[in-house]
């Protein structure tokens, strides 16, 4: 080596890498979620924003606490903790007391992700683990839906303190799914599409969620098979039921647009960590969710089944992966 040579690096190939990195993927999901989130905040007011921010803060703080000091920068740098908190916030009732939201965020990261070994190791979707925990712990607060109201009025329940019985002063209103389940009343499709209904923060505006999904699909961050599979299965299944008894069962369009269907199908079930790797497995996973959602909604005890449907199918992911390995090139051929 002579003096004029620059210092040469020795590294194994391939030397070229595509430019997409995990933090970029996570950031893409932020952008995709932003329109629906803004719409939700617009409909439900500042209180909803506070709930959302509390979830994110709790998630990030938990991630920070549980990550080893030398790796903290990377654990937080990939942006996944923010996303988990964000997704959790979108599934919560807009007037949930903040301390509950905080616990939800902490549980989502702590029990949903960290104890599995951190990013990539978890079996269940962390945001939904947090939500399931909250639903089991605070069933009343978690099923108190407010109707969209004034932007600057913050419901008093948001600032309720732990172990105190907060005065519920909000205008409560059953969610479209509750109306359907217990009173067999349908809600207008236009309201469902644009999100002007009661429900959780993020599950109201179907249209903006679809736009976000299309953006992710265009950026190739999203496995299109999962939302397509879930929606197609759920709609087909509910169409069959609807044709059997249209007075009792919801129609396919209502099924697709109501509740957490869009949010779940586009942003929750597609979480790569907890969905199958193989293309065939992905279809099985999506069809399973679609069937379970309608089953739970129509025949189960809860008006909404998206969360449990996804969590149940999450549990089957390793099994699905194992049995849906694609045929290796040049193997399993008919040999002469």
């Amino acid at each position, binding site marked *: 080596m002579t003096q004029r040579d620059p210092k040469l690096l020795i590294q194994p*190939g*391939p*030397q070229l890498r595509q430019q997409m990195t*995990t933090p*970029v*993927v996570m950031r893409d999901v932020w952008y995709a979620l932003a329109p629906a989130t803004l719409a939700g905040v617009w409909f439900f007011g500042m209180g909803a924003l506070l709930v959302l921010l509390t979830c994110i803060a709790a998630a990030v703080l938990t991630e920070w606490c549980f990550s080893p000091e030398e790796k903290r920068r990377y654990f937080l740098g990939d942006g996944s903790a923010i996303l988990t908190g964000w997704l959790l916030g979108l599934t919560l009732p807009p007037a949930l007391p903040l301390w509950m939201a905080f616990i939800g965020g902490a549980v989502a990261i702590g029990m949903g992700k960290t104890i599995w070994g951190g990013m990539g190791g978890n079996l269940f979707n962390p945001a939904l683990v947090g939500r399931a925990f909250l639903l089991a712990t605070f069933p009343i607060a978690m099923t108190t839906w407010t109707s969209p109201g004034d932007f600057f009025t913050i419901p008093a329940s948001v600032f309720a303190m732990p172990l105190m019985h907060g005065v519920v002063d909000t205008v409560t209103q059953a969610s479209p799914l509750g109306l359907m389940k217990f009173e067999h009343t349908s809600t207008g499709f236009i309201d469902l599409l644009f999100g002007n209904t009661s429900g959780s923060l993020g599950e109201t505006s179907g249209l903006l969620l679809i736009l976000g999904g299309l953006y992710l699909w265009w950026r190739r961050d999203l496995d299109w098979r999962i939302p397509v599979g879930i929606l197609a299965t759920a709609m087909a299944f509910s169409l069959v039921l609807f044709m059997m008894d249209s007075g009792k069962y919801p129609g396919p369009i209502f099924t697709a647009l109501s509740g957490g269907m869009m949010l779940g199908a586009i942003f929750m079930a597609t979480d*790569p960590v907890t969905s199958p790797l193989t293309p065939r497995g992905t279809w099985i996973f999506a069809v399973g969710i679609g069937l379970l959602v309608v089953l739970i909604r129509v025949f189960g005890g809860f008006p909404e089944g998206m969360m449990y449907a996804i969590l149940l199918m999450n549990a089957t992911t390793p099994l699905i992966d194992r049995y849906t390995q694609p045929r290796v*090139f040049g193997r399993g*051929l008919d040999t002469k």
Partner: protein
Amino acid sequence: MNLFRRLSNSFDHGVHPRHHKEQTEHLAIQRLPFGKRFVIPLGQHIGAPAKAIVQAGDTVKRGQMVAEPGGFVSVALHSPVTGRVTDIGPERYADGTFREAIVIEADQYDTQQMDVNPIDWESLSIEDFINEVQKAGIVGMGGAAFPCHVKYAIPDGQKIRYLLINGAECEPYLTNDHRQMVEQTDALLYGAEIVRQKLGAEEIVIGVERNKPDAIKALQDAIKPGQPARVMPLEVKYPQGAEKMLIKSVFDIEVPAGKLPRDVEVAVNNVGTIIAIADYFQTGKPLIERVVTVSGPGVSYPANLIVPLGTPIREVLDYAGGLTEETRQVVLGGPMMGASIADLDAPMLKGSSGVLALTEHETGRPQEYNCIRCGRCVEACPYFLNPARFARLAKSRMYEEMAETYNVMDCVECGCCTYSCPSGIPIVQHIRTAKDHLRSMKGKVK
């Protein structure tokens, strides 16, 4: 999906890196001037190293054989210049190790004319033809440097129907095959005809990626009426030039795992290899030089060069204007499967298709994150393996499971998985580690 792939002449999966060929694809091939000192490593091809038949102090002529094949899977080596053998001993190799090599000092006053004669190939029997190709030192010029004649030794009971010529050149930056197809079209078709007749093949098919329209046109124009040859434009996709992918793209045949192209009645040769064969039989010139693409953002004047084998890599780079300050890495071969060079004084080899100078922009590695199971590698692997699973198993050293359940030994290390990984996991390196480990274990059991 399959129908779509059929219509676009391609295989399934693979990746689309930017091809960066615009730097050199329109530059005519130039000849690199002879240097002073040439190093010819004895083991620069796959198989047994060649055996030196000269001694230090001998004078050699350009094109004279200096080492004979060390076995059947081995080829001869020839002197790239007229000069004097100064040493036979360990010399720097591209990977930083030392290997046995013949060092030849060029005679500065010689005209470097060759004293060789054309060979009448038509009267040769297939055995003699195979011997001649071995004697000419011809190996696969695509990068692997597999002795070419071995492919022509077809066992009894098998026949070759198609001679498939690999002009895919799917590695980014490289344009040496491209320029040869444009400039040496007749030699390519002549060489193809020699091999086709000797193997008794019915047809010559030349697979070329669609990003080389001038090469496709040149070949189509040059094919004489009556010659059983055709050009097949292929989708631009990496690794289109991998032997088994190419066969799938062109003939829609899957070569079974562990089998060779000849098992499906196909023989595959690289463009450069066929031209080397044509040169040998037309003029008698053995494999003593090859076309090399010097490119990348780290060189000032990218070029396609005829380089005498054994020339130091440094001289090739100097001819292209030298390395810029920004250069971080020099790669021998393509950027996907080529290797980093440890020492610029190492010699150019028969398998060196390119010398690339890359800057931080290309070689910078992203921070490694945990696998998020996004499945991009699964959808990139042309062999339909499960790279994400490999990375996870390799980290726990479960190599046996990788082989038994997931067929890790089928991997050709094309690097699509590592290329596509957003978490920056060096998957193909984990696979190499596993394969090495499995091979050494197998040796111990025997």
